[in-house]
């Protein structure tokens, strides 16, 4: 890619309420180049895309597009100038026809009226160029997501897009549809269109991208041809792990103690395309088992399936050795399982209710006497858990939405702990909370496990998994690819499994002169 880049940005800064989301970020992409953009949650990918396409104004930095400095004021502005964005959630008009969605806003008119024949013909033609052949007069919503995305792409190209940014376009596509999309990307590249491709599936990135930009904590931490960055290095760069690792390792010795304990919960080969493709995990009594994996690897999906929150199409779940099938969370709760979602706001707190009511929500059926809440017992339990978890509040009548993130999370933990569960599934319990509360929650998890509670812990932070877990199960593309225990739990072994899909190297063996050891960024 020796030619002058089509898009070049540098020194990009953006803060939200004083919190920096982008710090001195740079990225460039040339015509006919496919650039991968990758980073963890909160690394700044979405912010960068939104700053580039005019959704947000940047605080600092230069953007050059097609040789000129630009400052797009809206996505429409960006689109008119040849920069189109295709989002994960297709943002077209679902109940209008495919043709309208492609041509809307610049439809051909005859005598002041829309020339439907011409519109439909143009839409058919543009889709055919992407090898999509559908009835363009049908409403968009009748077609699968893949077709809807193709429609979005066709629309982008109809504006003569020179650069197309695709923000996780494949996350809801089936395998065959992904292949089609990758073909389209290659075809666009060959026609000289520049593409920025965001995905968490490494296979896709390596299949179609020429270059890669890795963001971490709002900074550009890698920028190179993708062929020069091994999967292992990519993952470790993204997660911020140096290769000088291997000191960090399971610190506690609980692993051997729980090895003989009975299995309390087991998932065998859970499937639901495209997110779950055979995930398995076993949880013994008093054990903390970690679920590791990149975004989109099926960690949360596995947890939700275990809890009866989402269905599975195939696979088995065993509770205390008995096969079970939870049709709803309520059934899982009755089997003494708790689940704390990663989405605290969306699926955790009931914002308008008091801390008291939030804590006792899951316990409620057991607090009732002839349908009436036993206030005395409720108060006693609420007080006990506020003390036990050291929740900082003005009083139990305070609305939960007025608490800090860490204290909200403690309330949600209390919601489950007061039900006296045997299994607790925690999805990113320490994300977005302050360091102090994080440490408290980690300590609490350990204590609870020592008292016999089994914990399934999902975390994107390898360090947290290493310090907290007796065992770690690594998922990749919805399938279990490795299970690490005790000494073998290391950053290296987890990164390896996430990147390569195998647990080939235990941390004790030197990994030899594998390709990844030779490369750095």
């Amino acid at each position: 890619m020796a030619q002058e880049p089509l898009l070049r940005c540098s020194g990009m800064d953006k803060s939200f309420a004083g919190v920096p989301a982008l710090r001195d970020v740079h990225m460039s992409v040339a015509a006919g180049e496919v650039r991968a953009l990758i980073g963890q949650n909160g690394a700044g990918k979405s912010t960068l895309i939104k700053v580039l396409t005019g959704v947000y104004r940047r605080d600092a930095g230069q953007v050059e597009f097609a040789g000129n400095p630009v400052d797009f004021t809206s996505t429409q502005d960006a689109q008119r100038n040849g920069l189109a964005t295709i989002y994960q959630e297709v943002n077209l008009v679902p109940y209008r026809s495919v043709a309208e969605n492609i041509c809307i806003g610049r439809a051909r008119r005859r005598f002041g009226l829309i020339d439907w024949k011409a519109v439909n013909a143009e839409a058919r033609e543009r889709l055919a160029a992407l090898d999509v052949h559908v009835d363009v007069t049908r409403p968009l919503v009748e077609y699968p997501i893949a077709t809807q995305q193709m429609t979005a792409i066709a629309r982008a190209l109809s504006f003569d897009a020179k650069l197309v940014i695709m923000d996780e376009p494949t996350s809801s596509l089936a395998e065959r549809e992904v292949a089609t999309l990758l073909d389209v990307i290659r075809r666009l590249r060959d026609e000289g269109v520049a593409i920025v491709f965001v995905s968490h599936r490494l296979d896709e990135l390596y299949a179609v991208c020429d270059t890669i930009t890795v963001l971490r904590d709002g900074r550009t931490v890698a920028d190179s041809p993708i062929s020069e960055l091994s999967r292992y290095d990519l993952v470790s760069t993204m997660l911020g792990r140096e290769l000088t690792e291997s000191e960090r390792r399971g610190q506690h010795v609980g692993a051997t103690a729980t090895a003989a304990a009975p299995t309390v919960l087991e998932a065998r080969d859970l499937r639901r395309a495209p997110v779950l493709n055979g995930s398995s995990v076993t949880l013994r009594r008093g054990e903390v088992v970690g679920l590791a994996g990149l975004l989109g690897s099926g960690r949360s999906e596995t947890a939700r399936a275990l809890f009866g929150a989402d269905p599975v199409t195939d696979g088995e779940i065993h509770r205390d050795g008995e096969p079970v099938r939870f049709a709803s969370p309520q059934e899982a709760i009755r089997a003494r399982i708790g689940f704390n979602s990663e989405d605290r706001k969306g699926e955790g707190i009931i914002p308008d209710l008091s801390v008291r009511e939030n804590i006792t929500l899951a316990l409620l059926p057991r607090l009732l006497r002839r349908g009436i809440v036993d206030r005395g017992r409720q108060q006693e339990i609420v007080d006990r858990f506020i003390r036990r978890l050291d929740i900082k509040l003005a009083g139990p009548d305070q609305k939960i939405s007025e608490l800090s993130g860490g204290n909200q999370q403690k309330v949600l933990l209390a919601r489950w702990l007061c039900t006296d569960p045997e299994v607790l599934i925690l999805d990113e319990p320490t994300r977005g909370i302050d360091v102090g509360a994080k440490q408290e929650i980690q300590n609490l998890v350990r204590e609870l496990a020592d008292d016999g509670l089994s914990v399934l812990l999902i975390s994107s932070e390898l360090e947290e998994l290493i310090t907290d877990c007796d065992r770690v199960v690594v998922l990749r593309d919805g399938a279990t690819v490795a299970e690490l225990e005790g000494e073998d739990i290391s950053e290296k072994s987890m990164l390896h499994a996430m990147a390569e899909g195998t647990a080939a190297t235990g941390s004790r063996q030197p990994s030899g002169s594998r390709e990844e050891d030779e490369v750095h960024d």
Partner: protein
Amino acid sequence: MTETATAGPTSPAATRRPTGRSWTGFARQYGAAALLVLLLAYNAVFTRNFLSWQTLMDVQLRQAAPVAIVALGMALVIAVAGIDLSVGSVMAIAGQVGALTVLGGLPPALAVLLALAVAAACGVFNGTLVVRYGVQPIIATLILFIAGRGIAQLLSGGKLTGFRNPGLQFLGLGRIAGVPMPVMLMIVVAAVLWFVVRYTGYGRTLLATGGNTAAARLAGVRTGRVTMVAYIASAALAGLVGLVVIGITAASDANNVGLGVELDAIAAVAVSGTPLTGGRISVVGTVVGAVMLRLLQNTLIAQGVPREIAQIVTGVVIVVALFLQRRAR
């Protein structure tokens, strides 16, 4: 409007509010009540014999009671982020069923049971569309709003169905301890609902479901059933009011019973400071809202303000109430 039913008994913590928004907070919580007090004061001075048992009970409260009862059911549905447009038609159906039953020579108690059962069935229909088929509440209940009136008219054969039955008329015209039946029913329904919201498991799950359905489901709440019960309660209360209305006139008029009541009920809930986005309910506030809106209309008309202008003023009052709600966010 002393409670919003989100928290338990008031404690120092709950009253610890930033002082900056105290005025709007007060206006939102007590705006309708303050207006009610203002209207009462005005009438006490300028309307002759206003502060008499006769005027207050038999005119003002009795006129407000039907809408207030319907509004209480509406408040339940709104608490789960729904809306029930079908209440007026359900009133007409229930009234017609009640009238036909006593005309058929059956006892009034059976007529009441039958009418309430039919109304509840309407609620099951609404709830099923919303819960099982995911139809938007406004559309789901629009179906019975339209078709329900037709059903009532079909039952009536297009004629006014007059009847003479002391038992059924008692619901509209009777008194208990000197209190007119409609007012008595309003008080009883409000008291029961207040208790349910504040002290029962259903009350908690109702607010949890409306406040955050996804979170409530993950916490084991049967959100579908909770929502269904709200729609059934709304329809059953509408059915009860249908019986009250035909009891007053001793005739079921399928064309007019409950006409437009759904909007009056929504207005009463709205001026009580309850957002239509769900998760909150104010039982006392809803009653205050309904009584206030009725008294406002009556006052304006008594002062010789033309009905058209009275309607406009009512609209303005609702707008002001909604505006205060937004400000208080």
